[in-house]
């Protein structure tokens, strides 16, 4: 199943946020979206995931979703968006409660999701008892439970410390390794974009337009190794050179706002 951004434009009142954004996320592909602050990255993700109606253009799907997918387009939110009154297990079960799954099938799905995210020992724990990284893991487990075709990740690591970020990045690489699941990964962190994405969509400052779409010329599995470090840094440098001047302008604009 492909996800297509078809000439998407959007305004908030008088403020134009996105202008004629088009690209396609193919099945199993990981596309990162980067750009200066306020360029409409998260707005674009909300439109792609059907949480916001664009003023112009459309988000479209092409091809059938996997037969067993309960929610083909599934978000992983920046703040993990867990129900604080529910345990880890109940949070993972939440999106399954209104599906056709039986209680036994739900149990199996939850067990699998908790196993894949290393949360088996935290079933009955409440979100407030968990660290930021563990909370985000629960958000990922919940997303995996509905067997998505495409994960829509909105800066999932931005609120975490660097060590936790590194650990979760390794988890993402592992989860996306077999190509069964695609992803749109919104981030302001170029290292994350280069590490995870097959292609990087670079947006201009507000209103966000596509400035460039960069293909990462390395296998994802190779990127974590020390041998690839120089090339990774070089790719980050190229991306940074694309957005640097506009990032400075955007920062000044925010400060003057």
């Amino acid at each position, binding site marked *: 199943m492909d996800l297509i951004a078809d000439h998407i434009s959007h305004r908030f009142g008088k403020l134009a946020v996105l202008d004629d954004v088009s690209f396609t996320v193919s099945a199993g592909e990981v596309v990162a979206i980067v750009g200066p602050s306020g360029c409409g990255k998260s707005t674009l993700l909300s439109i792609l995931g059907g949480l916001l109606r664009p003023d112009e253009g459309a988000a479209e799907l092409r091809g059938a979703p996997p037969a067993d997918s309960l*929610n083909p387009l599934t978000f992983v939110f920046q*703040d993990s*968006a867990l129900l604080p*009154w529910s345990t880890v297990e109940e949070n993972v079960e*939440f999106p399954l409660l*209104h599906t056709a799954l039986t209680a036994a099938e739900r149990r199996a799905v939850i067990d699998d999701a908790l196993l894949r995210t290393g949360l088996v020992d935290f079933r009955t724990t409440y979100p407030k008892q968990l660290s930021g990284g563990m909370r985000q893991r629960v958000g990922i487990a919940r997303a995996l439970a509905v067997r998505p075709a495409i994960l829509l990740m909105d800066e999932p690591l931005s609120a975490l410390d660097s060590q936790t970020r590194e650990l979760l990045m390794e988890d993402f690489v592992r989860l996306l390794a077999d190509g069964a699941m695609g992803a749109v990964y919104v981030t302001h962190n170029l290292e994350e974009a280069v590490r995870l994405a097959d292609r990087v969509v670079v947006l201009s400052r507000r209103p966000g337009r596509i400035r460039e779409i960069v293909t990462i010329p390395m296998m994802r599995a190779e990127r974590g190794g020390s041998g690839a470090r120089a090339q990774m840094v070089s790719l980050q440098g190229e991306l940074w050179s694309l957005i640097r001047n506009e990032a400075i302008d955007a920062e000044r604009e925010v400060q003057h706002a």
Partner: protein
Amino acid sequence: MLDRAAPDTKEESTERRRPVAFRGAGFTPDNGRYVGSITLALVVAVWQLAGSSGWVNPLFLPAPSAIAVALYKLATSGALWQHLWWSLLRIGAGWIIGTAAGVITGFAIGLSTMARGVGITFISALFPIPKIALLPLLILWLGIGEEPKIATIALGVFFSTAISVYSGVDAVPRNLIRMAQSFNVPFHAIVRRVIWPGALPSILAGFRITASVALLLVVSAEMIGAQFGIGAFVLQAGNLLQTDQLLAGVVILSLFGLAVGKLINWMEARLLHWR
């Protein structure tokens, strides 16, 4: 390879060392549970001493022992239970009706644009009215019986409940609702599993307020027109200058307020344990 630094071996200076002054004291008051109880016991003891020694006229301020005796006599004669029964009946009926209507209205205002527009206008206009002022009108509409007293309490409870419920619904983090929508969770399930528990802290805080409102209104309504009830009893005792009985009635009201507070604490501990 990491270049590991050696432990700090710098020679100590001969200059005199002094401690860093602690500046972080205060602004962390403790509950002081025992201090409160001890102070209360001391106040009651001084009060009793003042009464037994004849320092104050018992007509103006009966001693705690006299109030206790009055309470005992009221309990053994059965009058206490009769008055208490009528007050509880009125409070219970008025609170349940007002709360049910307030919860429904509050949710409607929190979830529907139409209901919000209409509801907030009416609530803003009617909430400031002291509800006891409506009792004569309610007597005219509903007759001389229990109905106008119950309706007065229900009205008082309704407005506070509606406000606390829609404030609670408004306070539910929008990201949780968007999260549920992103998983195609149906509307009714979002209300039941996201909005209701999210609004519950505000709703329970509202219960605490409406319990006090109901107590205030039942006493006022019973003072205006009732034969039985704690309010009627306090008024009669005052008219007959039986201040020991009057204060016995006040003690009962205080105990009722404390009991309701404890009940809500218990409900919060049970329902909001996740906080």
